């Protein structure tokens, strides 16, 4: 299939998701509110700590807000585009409904990942952008076009990294079978992206900054707005993106070979 037909499929799925959301308006409002409240809870944590201290690992309150906002933005995109698709993918592998995706004339990974959009997650990206703009204003920053451009690019890298990590995690279902709530590890991991890199020491530094992609995803874009464009950081992010996206796809493909359907 050509790229154009994939785009058409994606647009059809998107249209279907919008129609569905319109049908269940109350649900949409409730879930948007739920996500919004959770974001507020995390912002409150920042506010409470800074009521008692001036800096965390050298980051001032609004710098920290920028970091948390960045981490939220990436996560909102993941929630909007991929989370429920990949969550259902794991469930379908267990139940055997995954057969249905294999029977479709398209790349299975594409079919699995793009089935629907969660508009409530996407609605809250506006809130995350609001938080970021507010922090930038409070800090009195005037980012150049290069900074803004690379920030947007870096958010894109962040989405790919998160997607790769999440895909690698849920693809483990091919081996594990029964549900043990492994999807939860994604949220546990990404919690660390709300922390400044300088706070990590020793083993934590090795694990969360270098081995796992939790810290780089939020810290590098936030630093770009704060301290200007740094090519070595962009390189670090680019390499991480390549590694984690490839890892996700590899684990998925390896698992696919093991898939032997289920009783249904």
């Amino acid at each position, binding site marked *: 299939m050509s790229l154009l037909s994939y785009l058409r499929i994606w647009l059809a799925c998107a249209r279907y998701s919008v129609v569905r959301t319109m049908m269940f308006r109350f*649900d949409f409002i*409730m*879930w948007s*509110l*739920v996500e919004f*409240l*959770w974001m*507020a*809870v995390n912002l*409150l*944590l920042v506010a*409470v*700590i800074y*009521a*008692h*201290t001036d*800096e*965390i*690992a050298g980051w001032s309150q609004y710098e920290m807000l920028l970091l948390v906002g960045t981490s939220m933005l990436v996560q909102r995109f993941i929630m909007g585009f991929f989370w429920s698709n990949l969550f259902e993918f794991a469930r379908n592998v267990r139940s055997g409904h995954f057969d249905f995706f294999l029977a479709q004339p398209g790349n299975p990974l594409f079919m699995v990942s793009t089935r629907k959009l969660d508009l409530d997650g996407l609605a809250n990206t506006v809130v995350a952008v609001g938080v970021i703009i507010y922090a930038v204003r409070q800090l009195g920053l005037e980012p150049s076009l290069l900074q803004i451009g690379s920030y947007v690019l870096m958010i894109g890298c962040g989405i790919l990294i998160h997607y790769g990590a999440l895909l690698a995690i849920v693809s483990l279902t091919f081996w594990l079978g*029964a*549900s*043990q*709530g*492994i999807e*939860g*590890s994604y949220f*546990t*991991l990404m*919690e*660390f992206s709300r*922390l*400044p890199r*300088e*706070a*990590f020491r020793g083993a*934590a530094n090795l694990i969360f900054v270098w081995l796992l992609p939790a810290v780089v995803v939020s810290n590098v874009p936030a630093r770009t707005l704060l301290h200007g464009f740094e090519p070595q950081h962009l390189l670090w992010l680019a390499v991480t993106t390549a590694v984690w996206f490839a890892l996700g796809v590899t684990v998925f493909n390896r698992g696919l070979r093991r898939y032997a359907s289920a009783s249904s």
Partner: protein
Amino acid sequence: MFPALTKYRHAFLIGLQSNIVYRWTFGVRAVFSVFHLAFVFILWGAAYKGQATIGGFDLNQTLTYFVVLLLMQFFIGAFNEDYQISEEIRNGLINQFLLKPINYYLYRFSIFVAARLVSGLLALVPLLFAFPLLRDYLVFPDETWRILLGVPAALMAAIIQFTIAYCFGLLTFWFLEIQSFVILSLAIETVLGGQMFPLDLMPAWFFRISQFLPYYYQMYFPSAIFTGRLDQAQAIEGLALQLFWVIALLGIANFLWRRGLRRHTAVGG
């Protein structure tokens, strides 16, 4: 009296068995919680740099608070009881309890106790592994009254946790889907129950208001007694208010149950 207890003892034993089936799920969750503890340690460790105390407590006291909170979550916290009850109402499994001389609340509560015994013991496993790293941070006050008042506070907290979940489950009589209500309330509970940060770090007026809400007694209250964040007068006053909330919530649960049954149409079963 005693024959009545036997019924619930059986419910408890069956609950024990069925929850041991989910040992891996609980175990995995406990491991994630220990990772969350790492997040907490890194964040607060960095916040404490350059100052000995925050809100009158040093770093170790604050970290101990979060460790106790984690244990509380697995020993007294409600997990998915609301969802289980909701499912029983939806597929009509609840109908059988309407025909038998068994109190649904007590039946569910017996299973809850069994589930917390399993999840609590499982949470100890990753904590024991992390213990060599945690040991140097743990500081507990040595007054005995803290145990004497903390244990009843923890037990009543368990009743409050369960009863709130039970009430949410009963909402299924009116609404088809309760998931969003539950998560919405979880967000509020996370803040007002002191799971995000110790409530005493909030402005005094906020802290005072929170003491009149049930969330305060779900988590923060027993943990704060054990870890020395409340004095004796506050603890005694709190116990009285906590008892009020236990009674009030039991009343609400009973009310919802009676009203809900009137709407119930006993589909399926």
